[in-house]
């Protein structure tokens, strides 16, 4: 058989134009990600990993498979930890954000996002920094100044994340039996077959946290490259984490000294700065915080959306957040922090949960429409809200946007020196160092109250009562109330706070943490389902 020459030629041409599979035809690589091996291959790349974690604290986390945009990072949990104890009071049903949380529904359901995402995202941080720590160790990479910064931050993140978990998903250290109470799975590396582990005891988890935060401080204080900005964990922030951890386990001496170290270099703010809105990490007190820029905005999922009275969202317009009116009454007239709430703001929302909203006729503070609406206009003008915003008696004006009446993003403060003063004071008071506690409080109080006198609190009980008050007034809206209640074994009773029972339902009254297991959040169902070491019977 012979092909004629035309056929042969045509055949060759046809084959030539179509047979073109090259050797690497089946080798492809993505363009929206880099390989795990490359990610941990150099200090520069590992720095990228840390930046990713800094971002994760406030980003919409759709980027992370299984993470929820609506419960991302810390900015959801900061206000929720205050809302759930009635420290930050919702004035109406709003549009539903955090309602199931403050009604004590969400954290008690293992399938709900609030407990699931708190768990998952903190563990994600742990897994990422553990990979860094293990990789640097395994490859014997040079530990120079940059690497010390990396390892310091990595250990600090792991300590911080475990601290968030252990203080939320286990019984409080002080009120429990930490050596036997079940804690959370303790992993210092996620490796195949990814079975995770059993719940370690509370003590074991605290031991890991302490080892990590001490390791972080060792790296960061040993010639490490300084933190690039306040979104990075600096040596001061590491001390601050150490102080929080020590306080919650009742290690008062450590808490006091770490808090003193942490606040060093972060002077207390003046009245003007204090009342400027807590919207930027550039405030001198800020030790650690997320710097949120326009192109990384989280719109209606942001911290300020969830709690700021000026933000232009339906949540904010209909549901200004309130200051506890009982606590408010206790603030001395000489303390400028009285200005963080507006006791006489008119109750303009007819759907306000206390049933007093809508007009001067329902608002006991007003007797005629003109005064009522003039007062409303005054608030709107002063704080830059829109005319669609409602006002409510005792609404807070502590958190104010840089651009009020917009949806522009603002920074999220994660740690500031005032908290450290109060930790130090509490630790000294609990140690029985009355004079020491008074001295710290005097320094702190002088910056807040022109007539401040710490000597009025002469014994431990009086000091603690006062410190609880100070923490409420100073740290309102900053997310400490839930864990404060656990540490102080304090029940919830919102009867005279201004909160409406019809809205708060189960969240209106709760027994104290030592006798009420509902303070311990449910472990996510997905963990119980997939972790061979944890079964239904291990659920909180």
């Amino acid at each position, binding site marked *: 058989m012979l092909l004629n020459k035309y056929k042969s030629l045509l055949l060759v041409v046809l084959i030539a134009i179509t047979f073109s599979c090259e050797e690497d035809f089946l080798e492809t690589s993505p363009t929206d990600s880099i390989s795990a091996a490359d*990610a941990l291959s150099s200090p520069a790349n590992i720095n990228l990993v840390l930046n990713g974690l800094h971002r994760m604290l406030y980003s919409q986390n759709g980027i992370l498979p299984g993470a929820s945009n609506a419960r991302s990072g810390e900015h959801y949990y900061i206000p929720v930890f205050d809302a759930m104890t009635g420290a930050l009071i919702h004035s109406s049903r709003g549009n539903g954000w955090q309602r199931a949380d403050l009604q004590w529904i969400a954290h008690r359901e293992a399938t709900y996002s609030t407990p699931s995402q708190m768990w998952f995202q903190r563990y994600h941080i742990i897994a990422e920094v553990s990979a860094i720590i293990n990789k640097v160790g395994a490859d014997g990479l040079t530990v120079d100044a940059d690497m010390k910064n990396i390892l310091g931050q990595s250990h600090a993140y792991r300590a911080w994340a475990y601290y968030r978990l252990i203080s939320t998903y286990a019984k409080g250290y002080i009120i429990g039996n930490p050596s036997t109470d079940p804690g959370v799975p303790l992993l210092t590396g996620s490796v195949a077959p990814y079975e995770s582990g059993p719940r370690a005891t509370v003590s074991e988890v605290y031991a890991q946290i302490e080892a990590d935060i001490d390791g972080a401080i060792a790296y960061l204080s040993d010639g490490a490259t300084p933190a690039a900005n306040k979104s990075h964990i600096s040596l001061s922030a590491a001390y601050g984490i150490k102080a929080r951890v020590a306080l919650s386990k009742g290690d008062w001496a450590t808490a006091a000294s770490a808090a003193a170290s942490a606040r060093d270099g972060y002077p207390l703010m003046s009245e003007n700065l204090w009342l400027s809105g807590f919207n930027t990490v550039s405030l001198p007190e800020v030790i650690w915080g997320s710097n949120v820029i326009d192109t990384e905005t989280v719109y209606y999922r942001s911290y300020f959306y969830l709690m700021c009275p000026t933000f232009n969202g339906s949540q904010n317009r209909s549901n200004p957040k309130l200051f506890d009116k009982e606590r408010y009454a206790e603030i001395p007239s000489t303390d400028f922090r009285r200005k963080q709430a507006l006791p006489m703001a008119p109750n303009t929302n007819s759907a306000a949960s206390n049933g007093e909203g809508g007009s001067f006729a329902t608002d006991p503070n007003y007797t005629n429409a003109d005064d009522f609406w003039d007062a409303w206009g005054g608030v709107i003008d002063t704080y830059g809200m829109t005319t669609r915003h409602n006002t409510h008696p005792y609404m807070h004006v502590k958190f104010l946007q840089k651009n009020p009446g917009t949806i522009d993003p603002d920074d999220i403060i994660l740690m500031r020196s005032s908290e450290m003063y109060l930790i130090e004071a509490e630790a000294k008071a609990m140690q029985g160092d009355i004079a020491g506690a008074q001295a710290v409080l005097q320094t702190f109080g002088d910056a807040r109250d022109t007539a401040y006198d710490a000597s009025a609190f002469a014994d431990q009980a009086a000091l603690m009562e006062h410190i609880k008050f100070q923490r409420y007034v100073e740290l309102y809206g900053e997310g400490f109330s839930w864990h404060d209640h656990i540490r102080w074994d304090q029940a919830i009773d919102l009867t005279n706070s201004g909160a409406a029972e019809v809205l708060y339902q189960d969240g209106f009254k709760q027994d104290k943490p030592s006798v009420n297991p509902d303070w311990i959040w449910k472990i996510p169902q997905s963990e119980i389902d997939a972790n061979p070491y944890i079964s239904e019977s291990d659920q909180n």
Partner: protein
Amino acid sequence: MKTKFIQTLTLALIAVFQVALAQQVITGSVTDQDGLPLPGATVVIKGTSTATTADFDGNYTIAAKNGDVFIVSFVGFNPIEVTVSSATMNVSLEGSTQLDEVVVTGFGQTEKREALTGSVGTVSSAELTKRNVINPIAAIEGNVTGVQFTSASGQPGSGPGIVIRGVGTLNGSASPLIIVDGATFEGSINSINQDDIESINVLKGASPMIALYGSRAANGVILITTKKGSKDGKIRVNMTSQYSFIDRAVKEYEEVGPGQYYELMWEAYKNSLSTADPAATASATIFDRLGYNPFNVANDQIVGTDGNLNPNAEVIYESLDWLDYLQRNGTRINNSVNVSSGSDKHSVFFSASHTDEDGYVIESSFERTTGRLNADFAPTKWFRLGGGLNMALNKTVGLGGVGSSSIVNPFGWAKNLASIYPVYVVDNNGKIVNDAAGNPQYDYGEGYPEYGIQSRPYSPGRHGIAEAYFNDEDTKTNNYGLRFFAEIDLMEGLTFSVNYANDYQDFINKSYENDIVGDGAPTGRYGETRFRRTVSNAIQKLNYTTSFGDHNIQVLLGHESFDRDYSQNSGLANTQVAAGIYEFANFTVPTSLDGYSSEKNTEGYFGRIGYDFSEKYFLNVGFRRDGSSVFSTDVRWGNFYAVGVSWSIDKESFMDNVDFVDRLKLRASFGEVGNDNLGDFYISQPRYSLTSNAGAPGILWTQLGNNGLTWESVTSFDVAAEFSLFKNKLYGSVEYYKKTSNDLLYNLPIAPSNGLIEKPENVGDIFNAGLEISLNSELVSNKDFSWTLGLQASTLDAEITSLPDPFVNGSKRWEVGRSQYAYFVYHYAGVDSANGDALWYMFEEDADGNSIPVLDDDGNHDTTNDWGDAGKAYTGDVSTPDLIGSIRNSLSYKNLSLDVLLTFASGGKIMDYGYGDMMHTGSYASSYHPDASRAWRNPGDVTDVPRLEVGNTNQVQTMSTRFLTDASYIALRNVNLSYAFDKEIADKLGVDQLSIFVTGENLFINSARQGLDPQFNIAGTPSGNGYSPASTLSLGAKLNF
């Protein structure tokens, strides 16, 4: 008339040829066995390209000479050969069975149905003419056994979901491979004009042809073949024009009106109160909870302390029915024209079409323009080349958030918002308040104290309909396709060919969120997503056919490469400058800019041997070796194969005396194919995603990867009998299959404490099995009247046969021995008649992790009033039906024909979340279903609806047996009534054929509950807030000349 002139000219020319070639004009008629004319039948002179077609009365005229052999053929009839012996040659054809059909089986191969050793279902162009579907895939429903459909969304242009012989994967894609004119097609099927389609063939099971698609064939293969030009030298023009009315196919769930709503919420509120006199408190303040008083009575006088609506209360609010404002009368206009022409050396088909549809819901539309040119040429006897060019320009306008829990979802608003909340702001008299320009104002729900209206408890500050109007969501896709082939006969029986195909899709989505209300407020927000997808397919083949004695052999060898390139970018910006401009230039603050490219390549070598002995015994073997870029180097290649045999029993001599059997064939096939479609082309690679922190670059660990990940494989076995009995009056097939899927790719959930929640693994095996029966009977067949009844039924059975650990997947739990669609939910035990508590059967885990009943002291199944303590258990139900099928009646009387297609499913349960959401225990402003009125009220009440109580989450758990609903349905899928005008009338109009028709799609569905779409999804979990399927009623005309 011009046409007449042409006819005369033709005859004259024929006469000239007659003289020139010493031929004569042969005339005659072509009829069926009953004497009915067969217009369009072809008469070809054997061994030449001379051909003609019978006219409308079945008459033909052709120049031939004595001794010539005519091959007379017509679709659906057995072709016969007759030798010319006189000037009048009347031919009668016998109706064929399906077995004579020529079936496209892929890679350029066609086989007679008789020779098939595997399972192939066909939708012909004749069937397609009865349908009016924008997405041609929809025409498969009811026409091919073993294929399960989920309903298309009502959004104009959308198509249904399709599953062939059960879902054979846990987490990979269950979508079949779609091949259009020989090349992998990844575009939307709605970019293909149904009038361009010659046939749709569905390759099921393990036929040797399916094995040639190797790694992509696990979910079946759908071969779409577009029309080619005719070969008879004539130019034929077909025109179709249709006008359609679009309506909602599945009615909305029932909902209580304002009076009953107030009573029910009063009850729920009262039951939540701990005050001294809850009824009095509830009566006095229920308005404060709901915020709106649509009645002409005072706010504290709406519901009495007896729980009854004030008898004087009349509804005075206007605009309470959101559906009235959301829905409208939809329409579709569809025009299509095609021209075909050709000779024995070339053929050309050209078509153009335009479709413009406005959905039955506001702001939703679809517009499509298509064009296609298919052409084949044979420049020499041994060389052929040609191909096709096509384009489709689609524009879809839609609504945001459809079917999602997003606040913006307008369907969620219409269904879930209680009936006391108006669309527009109303005054104290309930009348719509107009602004200065006389326009009504949307009620944003943030309170109108001047009209006694508080803030709306349901999404204050938002408005489902206003946002639908103010926002703009539009998507344009341009689809372009190229098909090229060249074929060269190297020697007798041996052909080498190359095929090259390219499909492009350019996509632009523009999404504007307004500055007045919603997520885009107050500045306005605009996002754009653009992508281009390029899919290239190159195939080289050698085909060899030979026969010796009774042995016929066909050998195919080939190589295929597939290359999918995708590149996308998307951006988002806010703060608009001017209204109505949807471009980035109009938005001053960019907030994100993102983009990526991806690539998936596969390469395969394949071969097939077909052998038959005197067309009685058939053997087919197919093989393919495939490599995929989805997997790592070491595990990238896989081998796939299939073997099929068939036996035409009717050709055996021992059947000669069995009169009633016309055809009888047995066939069986066995084979293994694969699936690499995991939705992530880089799934085996551990990865960090790109991000940033305050502008500084960052990365985040997102994918665990798994270098050992490899193919899912599917092993299929099927056996079938195909038959035609009683002079073809009864024909059909009975088939059994079993499909086993192994090494299923699955994102194995890992404990979130690992930092990620899933790891891709090859775990798990499942099987699907079923019996498929197709029966067709010509009940009546005479000159004026015929009636054919078709019945198809398929059973579906599935089971997980291997899985490392049971896994809870929503309302299902995966466990060996059960279907992946087996419900594992809370078991509702009814209502405690003493206090109205919802009761739940309690389950606990035994040592093996199985849920077993908790028994009380008397040995009865214990109950609790807290579902959180109850535990979940299997219910014994699955979401998939046991039986699906269709009934088709085709009647014709003289010029009139009527086709009615019913589809049905039997068995299976649906977790009716759409209903469950309307049976809440008391959620302010959420709508109630009328069934809620059966709620428990007083001790001793016996009912299945528990006490309503605001805030008591124990009273309702939607994922429970309480909401499991029978999934059976029967649907009137298609009705086609057409009338073909008599030849005289057509002649007067100067055309060959003219018919008018009325076609209806999705006209009626009967399911267990109004509002329920039983075909919402395979998992049986309708949320009830999607764009409900549409029905279409079309009037149209077809014209041929």
